[in-house]
């Protein structure tokens, strides 16, 4: 039980430190479990992270579940995952609740309007990042799974154009906008086409 609670506490701490995405989670976990406590070997950790990237679900959650499982099987996985989502459920839910309550206040209203402009830029940035990951790839194709980070993009000097990516991307837009296909069959179909092509 002590192991489980410790796992929850460790992942809660790390969850609180992830502001603006889980990108810092992997280095934090590496320092804690591989370097400091030496509970997981370097190789196992590397393999775990690559599996977390190629399995469905948020990468942070996948990594937490895997580390928890290595520490204490099924129960450890559950306690670790719980720890990682607690910040959202405690701090996040309280924040959303107070914003809902004060949404007619002039300061909250203005602040949200300003934040919305920045958020619009971030959504456009996400679209650019995705284009860079699947159409204008700046690494060798096998490497592009590691291009999920929000660093300075090298799209200005992109060296790789993926015809397959362009094809699936364009067809998805047409299928969604012109033929009103929903996202679930669209994503499954794209996975199939991607695996076969």
């Amino acid at each position, binding site marked *: 039980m002590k192991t489980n609670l410790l796992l929850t506490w460790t992942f809660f701490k790390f*969850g609180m430190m992830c*502001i*603006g*995405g*889980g990108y810092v*989670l992997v280095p934090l976990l590496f320092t804690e479990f591989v370097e400091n406590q030496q509970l997981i070997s370097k190789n196992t950790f590397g393999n775990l992270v*690559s*599996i977390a*990237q*190629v*399995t*469905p*679900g*948020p*990468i*942070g*959650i996948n990594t937490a*579940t895997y580390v928890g499982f290595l520490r204490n099987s099924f129960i450890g*996985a559950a306690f670790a*995952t719980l720890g*990682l*989502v607690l*910040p*959202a*459920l405690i*701090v*996040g*839910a309280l*924040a*959303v609740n107070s914003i809902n309550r004060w949404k007619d206040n*002039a300061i909250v209203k*203005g602040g949200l309007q*300003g*934040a*919305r*402009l*920045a*958020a*619009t*830029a*971030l*959504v456009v*940035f*996400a*679209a650019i*990042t*995705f284009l860079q990951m699947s159409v204008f790839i700046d690494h060798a194709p*096998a490497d592009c799974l590691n291009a999920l980070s929000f660093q300075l993009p090298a799209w200005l000097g992109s060296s790789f154009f993926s015809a397959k990516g362009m094809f*699936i*991307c*364009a*067809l998805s*837009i047409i299928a969604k906008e012109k033929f009103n296909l929903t*996202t679930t069959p669209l*994503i499954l179909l794209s*996975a199939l*086409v*991607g*695996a076969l*092509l």
Partner: protein
Amino acid sequence: MTSKPMSLPARLWLLYSTFARIAALVVGGGYAMLPVIEETFVKKYKILTPEELVDMVALVQTLPGIIAVNSAMYIGMKVAGYAGAVLAVAGAITPSYLVIVIIAAFFPHLDPKNARLLGAFAGVRACITGLIIMTAWRTARKTLTGWLEATSAAVCLILVLFGCNPLYIILTAIPYGIGLLKWRERQRNEKQEDAAS
């Protein structure tokens, strides 16, 4: 709120099932969830306004925790309060837990560099690229209502493209939005006074 209001259990089930589906299908981090969230909660059920969707992006960037989990929490809060937040987050972590535990317990030596697997993921990413481009386009059309808004968002985009941390951009955009709202109110008041005199 909606044309035909849903009962609380129905809303909770909608939250759980939608986020389980999103987490199982979507690869590529928190932003990749946007098109499916938009399709389900904004377009189909009309529980969320397009503005609230953009607010979500700003909020999940500034709150502690994983983006995907924070997004689930935000939508859950909006649709069904605290219970909704818990159910949406539970949905978002269910596929990860199942898949990772099965892999860790039975296939610990799974090769994450399998060509078909990588191909399927590349296909899904390309599809999400198309979807997210359309979401970005609609978001921009909705929020960028004037030249001032468009210029401000463009400045944010340039900053983030050159590697500025999105957190700081949002934290700067909040007082900017408050100032903008105050300034506009004062201008409107002055105009009314001019018209009166």
